[in-house]
């Protein structure tokens, strides 16, 4: 039973355009959400997070939006750059519990 879902295994975007990566979750107890980025042959690295009391968090080119009623979050990257090409994992957590990861979305930014 997947508690965190990323229904798009892959996404291709033109350089300079917006990339939108989506994530859905089923556990209403989750109250903290993270995005990780993973390059080949490296471990995931933390990108951006959001707590359930917010609906938006922005860090430079990266913005995460949270819609609690829909149990949906999205990561926006604008403008997309070729160096953003990686696998992006959505993760969720509730207090005192462990992280639950989605299966990842492979983003390809085309020059």
């Amino acid at each position, binding site marked *: 039973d*997947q508690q*965190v879902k990323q229904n798009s*295994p892959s996404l291709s975007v033109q350089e300079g355009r917006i990339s939108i990566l989506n994530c859905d979750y089923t556990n209403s107890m989750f*109250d*903290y959400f*993270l995005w*990780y980025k993973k390059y080949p*042959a*490296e*471990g*995931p*690295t*933390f990108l951006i*997070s959001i*707590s359930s009391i917010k609906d938006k968090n922005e860090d430079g080119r990266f913005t995460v939006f949270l819609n609690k009623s829909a149990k949906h979050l999205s990561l926006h990257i604008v403008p997309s750059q070729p160096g953003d090409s990686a696998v992006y*994992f959505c*993760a969720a*957590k509730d*207090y*005192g*519990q*462990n*992280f*639950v*990861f*989605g*299966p*990842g979305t492979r983003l390809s930014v085309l020059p």
Partner: protein
Amino acid sequence: DAMVIQNPRYQVTQFGKPVTLSCSQTLNHNVMYWYQQKSSQAPKLLFHYYDKDFNNEADTPDNFQSRRPNTSFCFLDIRSPGLGDAAMYLCATSKDRLFQETQYFGPGTRLLVL
């Protein structure tokens, strides 16, 4: 630089031959995690240590064991690897298990079982 280190990066073992993967951290974090990740799947938590307290996930096979001799090091022992255990094994740390923690990952060890 503070970091999470995993050795080796690639490990080849034979079916049924015990293997140990290692992880070390310079972050002085309380929590260390081991994940198994198979191709195109989410990282799956095997177990974690909160300080010296070992916490096993309910569906982690008995074939997988772990040791944490001190704060810095954590080992994953696979007693009798099967072909289905071929995967990427990721070690991660977090300062605590509270709200708004972030995990820091090592580069992973890719295990091949022949």
